[in-house]
């Protein structure tokens, strides 16, 4: 189908933009951040980063190859933005119904100091029974965040609070990653769950059409 070929070409262009973006260490390019719809989708390298999930099990980025991932980076002490986006992600997963089984929802913390597997185990089930929480060494998390174009920065604790009560400023996008580890779609902060589900469904349907006709 012609539209499929066009879609693939558009996707390749987006990947190239993503690569260019990834190659540029100054990730906070205003033009990229402000782009909507045509936002650059990151290329996620399969470089074998390892994390610990909320059950204490070691997981590698490679464990997810062959599966779609819906990924949000955040931290459990985040009062408004992170639970809001995770709730939207969970609502989109519910909206997908049985098609949701093809998608692994992931919450990756960029606050490993406080977000231990035990803390994540208390947190993730509130959103979705299949949401997996990932923590790890600061270096590996920072490397993962970099590959997605995720930015985060620690604020000082507020006056009157103890030093451990710091908050973070951060990007708040949700990423759909394809079975090949490449970015497929980006959803901005505070997206609509129904629209997110519809876009994911569109990707799943498109990919299934491509594989059943033997690709291009």
């Amino acid at each position: 189908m012609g539209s499929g070929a066009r879609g693939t070409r558009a996707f390749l262009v987006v990947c190239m933009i993503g690569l260019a973006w990834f190659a540029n260490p100054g990730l906070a390019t205003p033009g990229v951040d402000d782009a909507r719809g045509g936002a650059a989708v990151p290329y996620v390298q399969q470089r074998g980063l390892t994390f610990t999930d909320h059950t204490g099990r070691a997981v590698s980025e490679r464990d997810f190859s062959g599966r779609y991932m819906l990924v949000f980076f955040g931290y459990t002490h985040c009062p408004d933005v992170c639970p809001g986006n995770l709730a939207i992600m969970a609502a989109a997963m519910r909206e997908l119904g049985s098609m949701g089984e093809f998608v692994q929802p992931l919450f990756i913390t960029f606050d490993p100091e406080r977000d231990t597997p035990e803390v994540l185990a208390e947190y993730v089930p509130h959103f979705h029974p299949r949401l997996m929480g990932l923590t790890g060494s600061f270096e590996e998390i920072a490397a993962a965040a970099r590959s997605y174009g995720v930015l985060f920065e620690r604020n000082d604790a507020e006056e009157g609070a103890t030093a451990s009560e710091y908050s973070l400023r951060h990007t708040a996008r949700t990423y759909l990653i394809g079975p090949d580890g490449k970015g497929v779609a980006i959803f901005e902060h505070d997206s609509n769950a129904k629209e997110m589900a519809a876009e994911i469904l569109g990707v799943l349907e498109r990919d299934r059409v491509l594989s059943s006709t033997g690709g291009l």
Partner: protein
Amino acid sequence: MKLILLSSALILGITGCAGIDGFRQGDVLVETPWARATAGRTATGVVYVRLRNLGAAPERLISIATPVAAEAAVHETTREQGMMSMRRVNSVELPADGVVLLKPGGLHIMLMRLRAPLEEGETFPMTLTFKRAGPVTIQVEVRDLGAISPHAHE
């Protein structure tokens, strides 16, 4: 038995309608206050609410207090260069005959230094003080951490 079930359903129904959905003081109506449950040792909570000014003059929310936290204040989630950040808002203006919605991802009440975790299902008091109407004490319902809205089915 049927009668008992019917009457308890009726009582539950009535409690639901006349429950904690709205709190009025003067021309100010504070509606559907809810908080997100907190997990683990998180010391920061959040409350969302709808503020309605029924009066013909502008109104202003000037302070907030609750026994569950050392400090409560309105914050606004803003986006700067793609990063989500929060800034404190010293007062919230309610236009005449207007509504201000405090909701996820926008204006919200931050509870700082919580004295205990907020557990789903519990309620706690909070006093909002308005410039004209004065203080109004509301009951905030704690909803699941994964909630998006004050209503269970949205």
